[in-house]
């Protein structure tokens, strides 16, 4: 029979109090658990090429950080969900990452269509989100205080293209051409309006069906209108190549400036002669552009050296890999520096970053500005100079 006397009760109570003061050995779950980062990746489907590049940076970052002991002793775990570029699948994956996988933060999606669908969902859950999508309205610190952009916005791209035309090429009359997709029409209209605002003349503005086999009508109209440069807003490499071929057949020596797709490797097989790709300048980034001597910026050079033998760059773009690497690093750094894993702590940390030295760029965020990529680092590249995912800086930059 078990008896309880006053002494044993006091001793037991004292023991309990002591154990409580010293701290019970809590289950090692939280400490040992990995830090999970959600990754909304269109790994398959029509828009998978950038994601494949981003993913190489993501995996490399996680492996590098984990090999160095993780973040405060905890391993990073990337929870990847293939959205196939489909907004509906992205919505489901986002909800699963938030409620089931319990991730710290979400990187992606990588295209604006998906991002438009999932940004409000992440805002409701106050989930820290960082993405590279260009549509301006995706960043709004009032509506979406948790959403941050790691790459330039459409407006920043537009500024860079216009700046190159007006300040470097010193042209005053431009033709602005977009394709007939929603993006092509919107981007061409915004670009033309900005050129006019800056006092330039938009000699010709048009939208071309990207499957139109012959671009002669449009280029002829642009030439007759006196355009000194052609600004192109389209993701269609077929349309780009046809424009270059037609320009060459017309014997017109006009520069073509615009969307990053102008530098897509696919174009190499679609142009009739390699020279047709000359004098084409596509949006690029200072950190991922090499100079006349073939040298990248020191930080990028070092990054490429670290990637050697581990990550292939020949079939992707360096900026995709670098941005994926930076996104994971930014989440890890937030936990490392604050010691906290709450949504609020990560968002607050990002809001205080000033010229954070990433590989892709130096990011600056404030509570009022979540477009963190420096506009001055958006530059033009010689479109036909692709080499291991980086491009030669277009002529005219100091």
């Amino acid at each position: 029979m078990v008896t309880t006397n006053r002494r044993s009760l006091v001793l037991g109570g004292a023991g309990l109090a002591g154990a409580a003061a010293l701290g019970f050995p809590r289950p090692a779950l939280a400490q040992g658990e990995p830090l999970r980062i959600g990754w909304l990746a269109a790994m398959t489907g029509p828009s998978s090429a950038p994601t494949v590049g981003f993913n190489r940076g993501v995996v490399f970052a996680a492996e590098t950080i984990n090999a160095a002991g993780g973040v405060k002793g905890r391993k990073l775990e990337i929870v990847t969900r293939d959205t196939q570029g489909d907004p509906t699948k992205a919505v489901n994956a986002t909800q699963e990452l938030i409620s089931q996988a319990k991730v710290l933060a979400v990187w992606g999606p990588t295209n604006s269509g998906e991002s438009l669908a999932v940004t409000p969902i992440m805002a409701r859950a106050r989930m820290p989100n960082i993405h590279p999508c260009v549509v301006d309205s995706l960043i709004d610190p009032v509506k979406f205080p948790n959403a941050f952009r790691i790459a330039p916005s459409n407006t920043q791209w537009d500024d860079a293209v216009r700046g190159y035309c007006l300040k470097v090429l010193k042209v005053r009359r431009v033709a602005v051409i977009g394709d007939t997709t929603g993006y092509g029409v919107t981007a061409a209209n915004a670009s033309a309006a900005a050129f006019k605002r800056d006092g330039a003349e938009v000699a010709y503005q048009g939208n071309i069906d990207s499957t139109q086999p012959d671009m002669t009508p449009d280029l002829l109209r642009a030439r007759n209108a006196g355009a000194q440069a052609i600004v192109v807003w389209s993701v269609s490499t077929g349309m780009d190549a046809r424009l270059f071929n037609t320009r060459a057949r017309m014997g017109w020596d006009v520069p073509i400036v615009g969307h990053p797709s102008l530098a897509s490797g696919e174009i190499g097989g679609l142009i009739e002669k390699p020279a047709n790709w000359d004098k084409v300048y596509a949006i690029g980034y200072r950190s991922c552009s090499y100079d006349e001597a073939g040298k990248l910026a020191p930080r990028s050079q070092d990054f490429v050296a670290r990637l050697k033998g581990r990550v292939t760059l020949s079939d992707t773009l360096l900026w995709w890999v670098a941005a994926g690497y930076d996104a994971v690093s930014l989440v890890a750094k937030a936990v490392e520096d604050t010691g906290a894993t709450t949504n609020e702590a990560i968002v607050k940390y990002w809001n205080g970053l000033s010229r954070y030295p990433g590989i892709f760029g130096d990011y600056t965020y404030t509570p009022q500005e979540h477009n963190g990529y420096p506009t001055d680092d958006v530059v033009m590249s010689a479109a036909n100079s692709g080499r291991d995912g980086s491009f030669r800086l277009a002529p005219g930059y100091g």
Partner: protein
Amino acid sequence: MLASILASGLAVGAVYALIGITYNTMFSTSRVMSFTAGQLGMLGGVLGSLFGLRLGLPWPLALLLTLAAGALVGVVTEFVAVRPVLRSLDQHLYVLSTLALALMLQQVTAITWSTEPQPFPRLLGGFGEDVLDEKFWLPVAACALVVAGLELLYRRTLVGHAFLAVAEDNFAARALGLPERRLRVMSFALAGAVGALAGYSGGELLLAFFANGPHLNFYGFIPVALGGLGNNRGAVIGGLVLGLFQQAANFAVGGIFASVAVFTMFIVVLLAAPQGLLGSATARRV
């Protein structure tokens, strides 16, 4: 400018005409408008590029393989999307079944080939320059060959006569002992080859691109409607007129408005002649 309108207008018009003939050939023996016609054109470009460029085969062999593959897709269309719905033609279920097969063909191509336009080989090594470039006259030559070949087939051969008999009245043809089902399969194989030839001959112009399918489906249907359903001569004239009009509209008003101009013309013609320009009104027993 006129030379450019003529060259590219006739070239794309010839491709549209060939797709129109594809529609007609399938329709004549089955009374089914198969929406795989445009996809056959797309496959002609993609397979031509695959055989001629990626696998490096000489162009005659690449052409032969492309036509054979097109014929095979035509036969598969008959078995999978047409035969099961023939009994309920009046319910127009073929719209769903052929559209579904067309979408499948397009998605499989996107996944296994590429979602970006791919180059198509220069077939004759760049024969001709500027507006006389081979990419402009090859589709026209292919269209002329097909029209001549079909005329020969329909007028001079027993199989051709049998095709016409089935097209005219398939019940009567069956009563006469003609193998209607086998003839239908053959006509789908023929249509598949014609569709693939459209894409192959226009490959240098349209490139090997998975998204060409819906474009060709759409613009290939207009010559059929303009020229009269089942009328190949009407389809050829309708296709060439459409190509020229489209290219002229590109010069005159530009991209988006050119499409508007094309469809305005289409609607006006159909309002004026609902049976098509060369079609004849058919009596229907009620």
